[in-house]
């Protein structure tokens, strides 16, 4: 669906963070981008979402070149949940979700979809009128997922959704992502440091090291295990 071809990018002209990165982000699949700190994982996500301009290389969507910008990508059904703050803390859960009404022509259509989405997140229904900032980290992540799901996404980028969550909650979040992918057909691209134990829930994996893709393929097999061992040996 979204393809990167030989992308070079960085925050200052003299020092590139990404070097000739090529990758394919697919619909109906969970893709994980892993790598040690400073490998360029979040930079890769920022470039794909148009938050950072690439210095070289091209990005294409459905085979057509594009200069990504969040405003254009959301129209194509591509959304992102950035790292760190996941919700608007002083707005209620419902207000957080209602931000999506902006993309809906009628309130009735939105309400119908909201009901449908809340079936995926039953824990949120009794908390709709609570301040989102008062929710637990796991519930906040659920609000962030629900907020993008309302818009019938084709592709969702998640930047380190495990930050600040317990291993049990991380497992739950990934199971939810897997279920949502299977049930809705949306593709999920998850940037994480190292989630070896969660690889059975993932379809494709990319491993980045010093801004280069050192593994690209199915999220299983000996080659991946070997590369993970080599990358995270420290």
């Amino acid at each position, binding site marked *: 669906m979204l393809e990167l071809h030989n992308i070079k990018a960085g925050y200052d002209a003299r020092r590139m963070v990404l070097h000739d990165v090529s990758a394919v982000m697919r619909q109906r699949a969970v893709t994980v981008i892993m790598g040690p700190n400073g490998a360029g994982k979040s930079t890769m996500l920022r470039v794909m979402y148009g*938050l950072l301009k690439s210095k070289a290389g091209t990005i294409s969507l459905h085979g057509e070149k594009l200069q990504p910008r969040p405003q254009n990508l959301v129209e194509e059904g591509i959304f*992102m949940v950035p790292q760190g*703050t996941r919700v*608007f803390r*002083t*707005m209620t859960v419902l*207000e957080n979700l209602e*931000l999506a009404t*902006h993309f809906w022509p009628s309130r009735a259509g939105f309400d119908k979809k909201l009901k449908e989405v809340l079936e995926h997140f039953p824990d949120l229904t009794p908390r709709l009128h609570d301040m989102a900032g008062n929710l637990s980290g796991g519930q906040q992540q659920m609000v962030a997922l629900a907020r993008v799901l309302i818009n019938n996404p084709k592709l969702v980028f998640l930047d380190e959704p495990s930050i600040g969550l317990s291993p049990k909650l991380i497992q739950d979040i990934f199971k939810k992502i897997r279920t949502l992918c299977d049930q809705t057909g949306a593709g999920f691209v998850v940037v994480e440091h190292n989630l070896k134990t969660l690889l059975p829930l993932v379809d494709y994996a990319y491993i980045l090291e010093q801004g280069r893709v050192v593994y690209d393929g199915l999220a299983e097999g000996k080659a991946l295990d070997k590369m993970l061992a080599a990358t995270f040996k420290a």
Partner: protein
Amino acid sequence: MEYLLNLGIIFCIYSILALSLNMVVGMSGLLSLAQAAFYGIGAYATALCMTGLGLDFFSTILIGMVINAVIAYMVGKILSRFKGDYYAIVSAGLSIIVFSVLLNWKSLTNGPLGVFGIDKPSVGGFSFSSNASFFLLCLVFVAMVYVIYYAIDKSAFSRCLKAIREDEELAGSFGYSTKRFKSIIFVLSAMLSGVAGALFATYIAFIDPSTFQLKEGIFLFTIIIVGGLSSAWGSVVGAVILISLPEALRFLGLPYETAAQLQQMIYGAMLVLMMVLRPQGLFGKYRM
């Protein structure tokens, strides 16, 4: 009675200014100190069009609003790149520039001597020349601005503004054109400030640049901090409290200089107390 009506008119003018500023600061989290500039432009547009071109009051309000909209749109494009303290500094710059223009463009504004002989508004042969009728006119404008504030506050547009106030990057990642939203609310706020300027000019019948300095913008900021950020009612109450204060000091019979200094001390103490005890202001929904 005349004194109370005079006070009521000033309450109304400052309520309009506070409501319009609260759209930018309270709803959107943008620390604008430019409100005095738009207040001044509105006042001068009305004063110059009425005295120089002989236009009626209501046409001049529209002219002031359009001029403010154009300036706010252009300045807003630059301002929307900034946030936080930088936004405050750049917007303060606009206020200083407008004051300098009003002071130095003597062929148009008559410089420090100001514009005299501004008539009271009139419509269909009826002149709002008495304080009572002018107060009623002001109340109508306050009600209109209040309704506009309320309508925006309950709209999906305001929800986006609040999202930007909370976390601009997160709102941007959701596909919102945050710069456009910031620019639109800045323009709307500037237009409404122009209405307050027009009322002020016709009420006082004389304006000069000294009324529209940066310190006026800071005073308006104080009103909404005390009254409450992101609250329409708080804007009005804040205006009433801060306008009443110097009036109350009059009755103490203090010498003018002492009263003026005491007023500043009380304003300062109020701000500090509000920041410590109730950072969201009396009726505020949002903490800066």
